[in-house]
């Protein structure tokens, strides 16, 4: 019986997180890279349409298609004709990854806050801000047991994390 227990605990240990030490000597691994923004990208507002650089989540609302630019905001398309979507404008929302809409109101995360926004073709109005509801941190990714590129001050403000291959990881989030 005791022998079985010992065996079991060895198995658990061998597989458990306690036994895991991050390997900081490997060349590359799957992990998270901080997305930096400079100070010109930190105000919520409406800008002219731009091309997608790092596509995040997508959301369809009526004739609109929203495409998240990871950590930066939302591309808004008129998708009335799915063969010819029209890139209408870009809503700058730093720290943005997710969105949903109801009755014309756009809900979007802004770092750790949730915003209710009214967006029209010439303006963005913040209807409401709910603070500290998202679980976003700029210091490290929210996921557990992941490698990430250490945040470097001077590169800008961290507005998001993208999953990608990273070289010679030096930071680990348990």
């Amino acid at each position, binding site marked *: 019986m005791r022998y079985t227990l010992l065996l079991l605990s060895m198995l658990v240990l*061998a*597989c458990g997180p306690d036994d*895991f030490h991050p390997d900081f000597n490997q060349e590359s691994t*799957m992990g998270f890279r901080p997305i930096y923004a400079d100070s010109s990208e930190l105000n919520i507002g409406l800008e002219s349409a731009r*091309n*997608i650089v790092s*596509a995040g*989540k*997508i*959301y*369809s*609302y*009526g004739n*609109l*298609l*929203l*495409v998240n630019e990871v950590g930066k905001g939302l591309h808004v*398309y008129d*998708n009335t004709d*799915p*063969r*010819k*979507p029209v*890139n209408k404008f870009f809503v700058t929302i730093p720290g943005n*990854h*997710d*969105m*949903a*809409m*109801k*009755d*014309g*109101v756009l*809900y979007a*995360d802004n770092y750790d806050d*949730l915003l*209710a926004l*009214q967006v029209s073709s010439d303006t963005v109005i913040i*209807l*409401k801000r*709910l603070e500290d*509801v*998202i*679980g976003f941190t700029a210091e490290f990714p*929210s*996921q*557990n*047991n*992941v490698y990430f590129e250490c945040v470097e001050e001077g590169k800008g403000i961290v507005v998001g994390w993208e999953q990608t291959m990273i070289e010679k990881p030096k930071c680990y989030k348990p």
Partner: protein
Amino acid sequence: MRKLLLLLLVSFCWSCTDESGDVGFIDGGGVGVGGSTARFAINGEFLYIVSNTDLKVINISSVADPQYQSSTPIGSGIETIFGFKGNLFIGGQSGMKIYTVDALGRPTYRSEFVHRTACDPVIANDQYAYVTTRSGEGCNNTLFEANRLVTLDVSNLDNPFDVDQQQMINPRGLAFFKGDLFVAEGASGLKQFSLEDPAHPVLIHFHTDIAANDMIALENTMIITRDDGIYQFGCVDEDLELFSPIQ
């Protein structure tokens, strides 16, 4: 004869339009549709948000004046939420959790399907939930093959059980489109399964030319995200045709 055949093909392709109502939260009127990797889900008068560890409830009965209502710890490694008729199917790295919500937006834990591998999204209908599990980091992945499409019978929300498992390559998002189940296989392509027997999806087409990470299925188009951008496909003559890239 040829015209009839074409008509038959077209009607096959378009016959299941009504089932697109099964996709995501569109029962609340004036609500949009997100992909299966979403962390936000609207059901009725509530917006549900999953963080890595918590389920947050926001009351949006007054849409312009949302009110924070509650936060419930639901584990760790939470990645996605999918709502269907008052049920929340929550995908995480250790499994899929089912919560139900009442008319006041209060979540109740019902059950969990644990698989202890990196888990990706889940979509569901009345009786079945479809989950993809994907190899990730962590030693449990060495115990058994992690890349799978798992079909769960969720007719009893307190006791979901798997009725089908299929080997996959590297599966990610899922969507119901035209009555079929589509599963994104990353760079390998997009798999299309018949749900004629919803307990046992049958692969009917592997679109190896359509790389896909996640998708939104609308009534007549499917919007696909992948590493190099976003593409819209429509159903033409029983096949998927590229309608437009989105740049």
